[in-house]
């Protein structure tokens, strides 16, 4: 299948479609032409611009929000096992 030239002058994206593209955009996974089209939409649509900023904020601020630490007694027992096993 031949690559069809992308129509960069086609009509504006709908917001309902934009909200599904923001993660691909933030991940750098959108083809360049699609990314530019999205940016043109964002420049004129405060709702979608807010949406993008909210997802970006969520992506960037969840570090350590939940803690799944391994129980200390299990950890210490494993390390003791390691010593026994390797020094056998």
């Amino acid at each position, binding site marked *: 299948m031949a690559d069809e030239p992308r129509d960069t002058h086609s009509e504006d994206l*709908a917001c*309902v479609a934009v909200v599904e593209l923001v993660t691909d955009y933030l991940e750098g996974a959108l083809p360049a032409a699609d990314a530019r089209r999205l940016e043109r939409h964002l420049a004129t649509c405060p709702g979608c611009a807010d*949406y993008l900023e909210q997802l970006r904020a969520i992506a960037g601020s*969840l570090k350590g929000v*939940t803690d799944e630490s*391994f*129980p200390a007694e299990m950890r210490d027992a494993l*390390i003791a096992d390691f010593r026994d096993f390797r*020094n056998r």
Partner: protein
Amino acid sequence: MPRSITHGQDEGLVAALCRGDADAFATLVDRHSPAMIRVAMAYVPTRAAAEETVQETWIAVMRGIDGFEGRASLKTWIFRILTNLAMRSGARERRSMPFSALAAAETTTSESSVDPDRFLPARHEHFPGHWVIMPARWPTPEEGLLAGETREVIAAAIAELPPAQRTVIALRDVEGWSAEEVCEALEISAGNQRILLHRARSRVRNAIESYYGAVEEIDYEAITAELMGEKKEEESE
């Protein structure tokens, strides 16, 4: 061919482990166990079962490290052992799907990031598919989203996610893994990884938004009426 992933800090530990260096083993256990619990939780029904699976994995690692050939990163190797053991343990309990199948099941269903009723219909004359109810703004403390009560809202939202979504957002955003590391450890495609991440982040956003309430509805009727009025005036001229 060189491995596509930069393995980072683990590789220097392999020789130390083979020498029987317990500090190196402790470093590895501390570094990876939290993420391992998150991954195991996708397969087994309880936290206790997940911890047990992680424990079994470390035992397998200490016994098998001499046979580690470095074809994959140490981290990938450890997580492959983990997912195999978790799947076996999940089979004893109630589920035994490989993560890729879980991911496929969650990504083949369609899911809107935002309630479709918040947009105008596609056939709307002037603003098809545009916002009716805009994203609500929420207060962001200087310290970030996790400073205040939002932390609990976010933690609860993550806990309620379907397992594949929960695992991907936990590894990417909570543990800080790269997309490539997640794809490699969970054996899923880059595309599915992004879909799961997008859905998970969107659900977290929705949870924060509904916690803060107040959404702003756009009065398109007024805007449309204005436009129609202009049109009629033109026609009657």
